[in-house]
């Protein structure tokens, strides 16, 4: 990658989220929650993520993550984007983020849907880093599916 690519990857927004992550930490909730632990086997990045859903709404996403700036920032952005949304809306946002990340840099992100998430457009060009960006999102999807299926604690 060139120095320009580097700047495309490490957008200010990403570095800001990395330095001051939103919603970080694991929180306890009464009611429907599920917790998952995901690992990126190649690099060792890890996330423990808890989802709390109530009446079809994502009430909270709390997490404990070890990883690089990209993976940390993406967890923070995830928190911003899905908390307070209905499960269906959140799943749609998840899908939009996934499409962006798997687009190899060819997908034009919709700022209305992805807000700060659009900063990850640069990451999509680096296959090795796409996994970092997706780690917490995959964990969130997994946990949410468990809550919805009723597998989680309730």
């Amino acid at each position, binding site marked *: *990658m060139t120095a320009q690519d580097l700047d495309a990857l490490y957008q200010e927004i990403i570095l800001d989220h990395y330095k001051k992550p939103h919603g970080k930490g694991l929180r306890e909730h009464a009611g429907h929650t599920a917790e998952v632990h995901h*690992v990126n*086997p*190649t*690099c*060792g990045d*890890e996330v423990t993520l808890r989802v709390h859903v109530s009446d079809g709404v994502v009430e909270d996403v709390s997490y404990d993550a070890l990883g690089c700036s990209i993976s940390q920032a993406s967890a923070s952005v995830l928190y911003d984007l899905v908390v307070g949304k209905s499960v269906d809306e959140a799943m749609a946002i998840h899908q939009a983020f996934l499409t962006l990340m798997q687009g190899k840099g060819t997908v034009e992100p919709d700022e209305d849907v992805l807000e700060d998430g659009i900063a990850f457009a640069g990451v999509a060009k*680096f*296959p*090795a*880093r796409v996994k970092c960006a997706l780690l917490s999102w995959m964990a969130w999807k997994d946990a949410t599916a468990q809550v919805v299926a009723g597998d989680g604690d309730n």
Partner: protein
Amino acid sequence: MTLEGLLPELAVIRKDFPILERTLAGGVPLIYLDSANTSQKPQVVIDTMVDHLEHHNANIARAMHQLGAESTEAFEAARDKVAAFIGAPERDEVIFTKNASEALNLVANTLVWPGERQVGPGDEIVITEMEHHSNIVPWQLLTQRTGATLRWFGLTDDGRLDLSTIDELITERTKVVSLTWVSNMLGTINPIAEITRKAHAVGAIVVVDASQAAPQLPIDLSAMPVEERPDLLAFTGHKVVGPTGIGVLWGSRAVLDALPPFLGGGEMIETVRMEGSTYAGIPHKFEAGTPPIVEAIGLGAAVDYLAHIGLDAIHAHEKAITGYALEGLRSVKGLTVLGPLDAAARGGAISFELDGVHPHDIAQVLDSRGIAVRAGHHCAKPAHARFGVQSSTRMSSYLYTEPREIDALVEALEYTRSYFKLDRA
């Protein structure tokens, strides 16, 4: 001479294979009729490997730098190519091994350990009398180690599977049926669909050794009805114009997921802790350690090369050459072909006996005329025993074989007869 079915661009194809220009001792040109043993390599496979080693070499997956990304991309693209080559339902179902033997052992080895498919006393494994040792010994080891029983499909006198016993062989006790698609000794093409359907009906899994099929038959797993689709399929890179050091195990996700890990180490883990480890999903779960990277990339170029020519065309070519060879061999006095005599129902490996001359001696005389064939048991001792022979001579053609090479073989066999003075005896 032209023969119906020959590859139209044969002369051009031959130019792709540098070794075919070789001359041997005494200035004799090479006539390579040992392709069932290993195939020759086209320039594009060699060049692809060289380009990788000279410009992109790095370890994969674990490396984040540009060379690492290039290497990983090339390696995973090779997986896509192999998946396309066999019509794999999912590209992640393609596992790279070091050869077909490792692929078959992977299956036999993991079935020993706890898991949905674990084999135990009272269970039965069914193989056939025409298997290559690599599809026999792993199952002998498995049955010895688990107390399961090994059972065998017999052969008919003309070298086909004896299916008359199928109902006694494939029963509720059967856990695995493992068989070759095309015999490397007899050339026989086995009815994989029929046997798989039968095995699936009793809940057994089917392992197909496609080492001799992959080079010459179009394979499209996705197009097979699920009941007739094997659960696992193995082949080896060096027989499909790829390099040595690389083989393929394809398996359905369901079966692969149900098998415990085979070799442990780097790349196959999810996490490793002192108390215990968890494993990655397929295909990585079965690819411990640094994989054969440049070999996989070479194999990718190889299957692309074959696909470009077209497996249907290659198969037609093999049939034409095989038919021509069967005819030529028939003209040699005292020569008996082992296996089916119908070119349409067999692969391109033809094993034969010549009354009064031992296969080594035949091979030696042929070699003095530049003709490379194989002599011995071809890693198929039980099949040789079945036909009461200790060894045989085998000629095997491939997409670069020309009719004139068959003519040379037939002539050299006549010469062998006279060299050993057979008509005087």
